[in-house]
């Protein structure tokens, strides 16, 4: 469903061919800074904002953006965490049951301006699950979507688009976008990798 979780389930011995490195640490940082200021501008400040990171890599991105918003506005919006596992539409067809993690939304989302944050937007199914889950917690005034990487509209399987995009990266289906963040990985960066078996 998501590149990051897909990648985690693939055994380490399967080597991916790194095709291109599209972002490094400083570029990720600059992209997040721009997204943060766009979010503040669009929402007329940080007062009603509530950032919600989608597990796993959306969470550190949300934290970093909250810090940047605090630098701009002097107010740090709350950061929540969504684990969409129980809302996936492929639960009944995936073989091994995906590990369930906790959803944590500090405070009421009622009438807040929610910004959902994830690392990669691909099919849109993760976002559908996140929206369904979010609505079970209350009725936000507005929900927006911010992603570090948008793989392009042609991959979308649902009518979902991002409001804030770090970088638009048109990709092939056989390619995988790998976002690496210090919180989970040894380095910072975004690379395009390709599955060797599918290209052969």
């Amino acid at each position, binding site marked *: 469903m998501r590149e990051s979780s897909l990648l985690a389930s693939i055994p380490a011995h399967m080597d991916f061919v790194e095709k291109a490195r599209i972002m490094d640490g400083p570029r990720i940082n600059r992209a997040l800074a721009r997204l943060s200021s766009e979010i503040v501008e669009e929402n007329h400040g940080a007062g009603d904002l509530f950032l919600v990171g989608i597990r796993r890599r959306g969470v550190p991105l949300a934290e970093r953006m909250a810090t940047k918003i605090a630098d701009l506005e002097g107010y740090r919006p709350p950061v929540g965490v969504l684990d969409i596992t*129980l*809302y996936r539409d492929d*639960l009944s*067809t995936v*073989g091994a049951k995906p590990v*369930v993690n906790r959803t*944590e939304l500090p405070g009421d989302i009622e009438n807040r301006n929610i910004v959902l944050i994830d690392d990669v937007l691909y099919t849109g199914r993760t976002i559908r699950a996140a929206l*369904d889950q979010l609505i*079970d917690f209350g009725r936000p005034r507005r929900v927006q979507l911010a992603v570090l990487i948008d793989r392009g509209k042609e991959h979308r399987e649902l009518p979902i688009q991002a409001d804030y995009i770090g970088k638009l990266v048109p990709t092939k289906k056989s390619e995988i976008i790998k976002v690496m963040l210090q919180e989970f990985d040894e380095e910072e960066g975004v690379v395009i990798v390709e599955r060797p078996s599918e290209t052969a």
Partner: protein
Amino acid sequence: MNTTFTRKHLLGIRELDAGEITHLLDTAENFREVSKRQIKKVPALRGRTVINLFFEPSTRTRTSFEIAAKRLSADAVNVSVSTSSVSKGETLLDTARNLEAMAPDCIVIRHSMAGAPQHLARMTKAPIVNAGDGAHEHPTQALLDALTIREQKGRIEGLKVAIVGDILHSRVARSNIYLLTKLGANVSIGGPGTLVPDDFAELVDNGLRIEKRFEDAIEVADVVMILRIQRERQDAAFFPSMREYAVHYGLQPRHLERAAPDVIVMHPGPMNRGVEISSEIADGSQSLILDQVTNGVAVRMAVLYLLAGGSPAETAEEKPPAKRQKRERKVNHE
């Protein structure tokens, strides 16, 4: 060692390894949050059917499984013995086969005979959850007890756990002994000599101590688990009277004086107040009895999610041979 739980059934704790138990507990811990939401429901098991097949009276466990199923959006159907065709003479296997013909995705069974869930698991295709079989096992109770201990103490390993009372008749004691020793706790059991059998020493290789004096079991304990006196199973004279039991083996505040200062007290319910546990302790600050009930829902959600959430394609593939069997049975009948 396994780090995930991929079994088809949950029949007992005995056959699980520490990794599987930990995965079940971790999953349950994450499910706890769902019950704190305003809308206490997630769509994970939407369209799935869970049958609660209870051959013994139960309020807590049956309700807990029912709520767990409903919070996962599964449809829960309760079959209890007094209203079932069992009272019309149907065998356990026929009952199960008939229920199975209605295509449930999971059957939760409680039965007074040890081994009934294992028997069903061999004969039916649906995943089976043991909700208590005779004096054998009650795996979800042991899991919810462990979740409660872990929540309170942060760990299981190295803790001193005293299980006291009617050990002999207790499936809760057996499942807890397996689980706690697998996770590295030091368990001691105690109570009246007639209800604390020596052959329990053979249940596990290590980590279990048998105390004839129940005060010795409680001493220095971090966790005290009180077991219910099973009035319905006291046909033989294991002790003279309930009153006498209360005087000698009922847990009183004085018993906890020598236990760890942050000792916690648990009871699987239903309690016989004033018999195995004094009201002062049951309602006191050390008691976690209601936390156990809360955690029971989370544990059962985790179990149902892991067992009933699988691919329905598996059952579809197994269908043709089942039909053949049916025809053969008909032939035999004629």
